[in-house]
Every structure is written in C-alpha cells, then in structure tokens.
C-alpha cells in the first residue's frame, strides 16, 4: 500500500517537472544560444567564456538593447560533444526559432554546429574554436570566426620568435590534430621568415601526459635557444612543473600562457616568469577601450576578464553586424558582417568576406612577477603583431564559399 502511494507521488512529481518549463515561457526577445561545456572536465573554460558573452549582452541590454530589442542568453551545455550540442541547438531552432548561436570550446562542436547553421540558415560565430579547417575546407556562409586560428596564431608566434633572432628552436606538442596543425603552421612561417633557424627537436606526446621526463631530457640535450609549444591546460602546467627542475631553462613561447588558472595552479612563479605568448585579447592590451573595459568589468564582477574578453569582444562584433544590417534577418546580417570592421578593446578586427575569418592583431605578453592583476605572476604587455603580418591568403585556406 505504502509503495503504491509513493508510486503515485512519483508520477505526480514527474508530471509537474514536465509542465514547469512550459509554464515559464520567455517574452519577446532576441535569443542567443551559447554552446559551451558547462559540466565535466572543461567546465572552467566553458563558464569563463559564457561569462564573457553574458557580460557583452548585459552591456548591450543596459544600453537599450539591439535594434530596440533585449537579448536573451540561452546557455547550452555541449558536454564537449558535437552530437549533444547540435541536437540541443536543433531543438531550440524548432521550438523557439533561435537564429543566433555562438561557442568557444571544441572545434569538433564547431564543425557540427557549422553544418547545422548552414542547413537551418542560422548564424554561428566562435570566439575560441581554432581548428584552421573551420574557415578552410569546411567553411560556409553561416559560420563566422571572430578569433584567431591555428595558422594565424602559429604565424604570430613565429614572427615573434624570428624577431628575437633565435638560432635554434625545440618544439613540443600534443599528438593530435590540433598540436600537429599548430606545429606545421609554425614551421612553415619560421622557414619563410628566418631560414637560418634550426628546429633542433620536434617532440609529440599524447594529450594528457603525466610524465614529461623523457621529452624534457631530449629538449635539454638538444640545447635550443628557445622552446615553442601549443600545449594548453594540464599539458602546459606539467611541462613547466617537471621541465624547469630538470634544467629546461629556455624561454617558452606558448599558445595560451596567460591563463590565470594554469599559472595559479603552478604554485611557483619562477617556473613561468619570462615565458611569452600571443593572444587576441589580453588584459594588458594598451588600447583606451580595453582599459575602460577592464576597469568596468572589474568594478561590476570583482575579477578580471581573462579569456572572458574573447567572448565579450566577439559578441560585440556580432552586435555591430546586426546594427549595420538594421534587422534580424540572417541573410542581411551575413551580408553586413562580411568585410565589417570593428574597433573594440582588442584593436581593429575585420571580418574577411571570402572565408569569414577575422583578421586581427595579436597582443604579445611576457609573464612577469609584478603585475597589477594577481598576486601570482601574470602578463605584461610586450608588443603587438599586426594582422597583415600573419595573414593567410584566401587561396591557401582551402575555403570555397558557396552562396
């Protein structure tokens, strides 16, 4: 008898749960779906990006909205799985007619979303998915990349290292498509800019390696002037943690060195001081707009917009395109965004019409002990690399845009 009562209770509860969202439907707003991993291992990255997009939307809404309408964010937990992200996005398109999506984590998610966007004629823009192929052979008119890619970022690091005049360089990278693409682009640009520079070691390790000793000893034995690595997250942390005590003293030039989580988790600033990196948005970028943005963000949130800035600037860029189009019509916005320039906190960004890859400057940073942002070591502005210097000609991207 008791069991039966609980059974009815259970049925009632599930019924209420089913009805709940139906009762709480939204008002007339412009909806922006944000696909990020909001659970699991990469949650911390997804939440920081989402926070940046949210801040942009709050800023736009506080200023009266976009074309007089408020924007509403719909967070989509992609679980970093392309099938999950595209299924949820498809449902949102059918249910609520969502026309705008963005995301920053996982090029695999990007590839699936790009196809979906093209099929359903909606817009997807990314501020963090960097696989060059997304604006290369997989490009389409509904996908926009408001960030760098593995080609341009590797080019920027090659420019930086060529300027420094290193004679020999060691490379260490993760053994999967991202690591390999990044290294290939780096070597290509380096050979072009500084043919006399030798690559004295080129090492690949599985992503998520725990023991870096075999790789570090090879680097140390090769005696390079400097080290290039596209490693990120834990693979960067452990490379530094295990490499420095083994005598790997060279400056490291890395894709994502100015990550407060990576540096904070090292626990020892001396491991990372002096290393350099390039990034499309940095706290220390010395533009007037960036100084205002960082100060306002810190005042509102109580922390600094590391990484979040990428989501913020890209979303403001999208809003500019909508404003220029003067309507929320997808085709009009695509047309308006192509060739559009936006002068924001991270300098002037221009959306190249032929492949929808934003041409943008890279901000160079060096990790120093004393910085205005954190107690631990963090970045110092160390120059800028112009968009022209890292441009990949359209005919080399493999993109054939069809209309």
């Amino acid at each position, binding site marked *: 008898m008791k*069991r*039966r009562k*609980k*059974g009815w209770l*259970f049925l009632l509860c*599930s019924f209420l*749960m*089913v009805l*709940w*969202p139906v009762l709480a439907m939204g008002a007339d707003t412009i909806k922006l779906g944000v696909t990020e991993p*909001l*659970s699991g291992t990469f949650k911390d990255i997804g939440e920081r990006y989402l926070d940046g997009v949210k801040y942009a939307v709050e800023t736009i809404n506080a200023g009266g909205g976009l074309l007089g309408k408020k924007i509403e964010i719909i*967070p989509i*937990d992609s679980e970093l*799985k*392309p*099938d*999950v992200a*595209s*299924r*949820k996005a*498809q*449902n949102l398109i*059918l*249910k609520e007619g969502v026309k705008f999506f963005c995301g920053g984590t996982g*090029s*695999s998610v990007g*590839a*699936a979303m790009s*196809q979906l966007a093209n*099929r359903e004629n909606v817009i997807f823009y990314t501020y963090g998915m960097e696989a060059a192929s997304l604006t290369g052979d997989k490009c389409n008119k509904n996908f926009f990349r408001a960030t760098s890619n593995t080609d341009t970022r590797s080019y920027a690091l090659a420019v930086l290292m060529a300027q420094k005049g290193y004679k020999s360089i060691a490379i260490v990278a993760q053994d999967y*498509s991202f690591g390999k693409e990044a290294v290939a682009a780096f070597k290509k640009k380096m050979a072009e800019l500084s043919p006399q520079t030798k690559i004295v070691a080129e090492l690949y390790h599985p992503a998520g390696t725990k023991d870096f000793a075999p790789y570090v000893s090879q680097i140390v034995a090769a005696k390079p002037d400097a080290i290039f690595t596209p490693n990120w997250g834990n693979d960067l942390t452990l490379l530094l943690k295990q490499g420095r005590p083994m005598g790997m003293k060279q400056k490291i030039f890395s894709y994502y060195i100015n990550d407060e989580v990576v540096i904070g988790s090292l626990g020892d600033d001396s491991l990372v001081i002096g290393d350099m990196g390039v990034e499309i948005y940095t706290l220390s970028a010395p533009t007037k707009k960036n100084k205002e943005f960082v100060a306002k963000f810190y005042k509102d949130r109580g922390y600094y917009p590391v990484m979040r800035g990428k989501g913020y600037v890209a979303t403001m860029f999208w809003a500019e395109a909508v404003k220029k189009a003067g309507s929320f019509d997808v085709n009009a916005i695509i047309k308006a965004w192509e060739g559009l320039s936006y002068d924001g906190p991270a300098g002037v960004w221009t959306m190249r019409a032929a492949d929808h890859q934003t041409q943008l400057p890279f901000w160079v940073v060096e990790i120093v002990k004393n910085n205005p942002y954190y107690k631990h070591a963090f970045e110092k502005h160390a120059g800028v690399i112009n968009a022209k210097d890292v441009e990949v000609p359209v005919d080399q991207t493999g993109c054939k845009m069809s209309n």
Partner: protein
Amino acid sequence: MKAKISLILPIISVLVLLLLMPLVLKNYHLNILTEIIIFALYAVSYNLLLGYAGLLSFGHAMFFGLAAFVTGIAIIHLKGIGMITAIFLGVFSAFLAGVVIGSLLLRHKGSYFALLTLAFNALFYAVATKWHSVTGGDDGLNVPRPELNVIFAKIPVETVPQFYYFTLIVLGIVILFVWFFTRTAMGKTVLLMRENEERMKFIGYSTNLSRLILFIFTGTLAGLAGAFYTLHFRFVSISAISVEMTTVVLLMTFVGGTRTFWGPILGVFVYIILQNYLSDITDRWPLFMGLIFVFMVLFIPGGLSGFIMDMKERVAKKREVALEGNQL
C-alpha cells in the same frame, strides 16, 4: 476472439493517433516524437534480450553504433546512394556483427555474457575513436540525408513531418512485426529458455541455437534503429557507439518495465521527454535521471508498465468485490 480484439484495438487506435500527430503538433514536438520512435525500436530490441530472454547485455550500442556509422559512411563515400541502400548496408553490417559476436558468445550467460558484451562494445568504441580518417573520431561525421526512391517514385523526406511519417511507417511496421514475433513459437522458446533452460534441453531444443538467433535478431533491430538515428540527426559520432548508449537503453527499458512488450516504449517516451525538459532547466539532469532510476529500482521494480498493470488489476478486483457486494 474477444481477447484478440482487445489486443488489436488499442494498437490500431495508437497508430491512428500517431498518424494524425503532424496535424496537431508543432515541428519541435514532432522532431522529438521521431526520436522517440527510433529509440522505441532500440529499446524493444533490447528488451527482447533483457526482459524476454533474461540476458543482460552491456554491448547493445555496438550494433546501434555500427549501423549508424556504416549508414553515415556509405552516404558520404558512395555518391548517389539511395536512402534504402544506405539503411540496408547499415542493417546488414549489424547483422554480420551479430553473427560473428553471437557465435563467440552463445555459450555464456549471466555475468560472463554481460562482461563479454561490454568488452566487445569497448573494442568497437576504440576502433571508432582511433580510426579518425573514416569515422571522424571525436569530430564525428556530418551526414546529408539522401533521396528516398521507392521503385520509380521519389518520396520527399527533407522536412520534419515528412521524415516523421517515413520513420513512423517503417519502424512502426518493424515494431509490430517484433510484437508478432514474441507470440510465435520461436518467441515462446525465448521465454522458455529464460524460465527453465535445462528442461528445454531435455525436451530436445537447441538452446544455443535459439540464443544465437535471438542475439542476431536483436542486433539487427538495434542496427535498424541506429541507421535511422544517423538519418534523423544527420550526424553520427562516437557517442552512438559508446557504452553510454547502452546504459541509456538499459535505463529506458528499466524505467518502462521489462515485464511487458510495450513497457520499454513507454520508458523511451518518458525518458526522452524528461531529458528534453530537464536539460532545459538544469545542466545536472543526469543526476535527476539517476535519482529517478534509483527510486524506480527501490519502489517500483516492475517499471512504469508494471505499476500500471498493478493498478489495473486492483481496479478490476475492486469492481469484482463491489459486484459481489451488490449481489448479496
């Protein structure tokens, strides 16, 4: 005769109802309903193993995923392939996998069977992950929906309602066929096997052969569901062949109840609706699914269908008591 009518009448009314759905429902709900039908076939095939034969498999996703991948790869690489050929290739690959794996597994039962199926599933998963050039690895494959040509007519399946009808008709017929199968002599031997295998052997049945046939049959059905999965989402990735896909169907089957044929279908319905709504509300929806599962195991072990059957019996008994009371 009366019993037959009471069986067929609800089936026909459900079918008519489903056929009328596109007139009532919006595309969003129709899309979910299509997903429900696909997973219903997957769950029904799983329940033939779990509920009817008492075989707990942790590797059902290998058939589902294999057919999903083969269908997708065939569409991408074979230019101008029709939808029926693509589905056939997918289903046929699942059939072949069933023959090979089934003949290796047929002597095992209970936990040995469960663990071996898990091992085979892990093998398929590893191949799908590592064979990047063919399966797309983590990136998955985007699969366009090919044309559906039946004899000389081209049937459109691009829009949500069109694909819904296509799925409903094909999978609906297959599910009915499976239902019919459970009532044939072969279907009954499956039940016998679960209840008393020794006795069956004494009577003269080859239980190994029966089990092999059942294994291949359920694998092929799961493969058909997998092929439709690819066509429905126009995308296939390693998720389709992961162990997670098996636990999902286990959960669906269990929530619905394994005692009846239609229990798993009810389970799929509840699971997918809940999943869609819960994931709208919270990112932690697997936690709630888990809680529901624990609750079901503790308090309603017969699943939703078991619960409904209990209720029906109770009502019937009460009516009898009431009738007797009136007579007195």
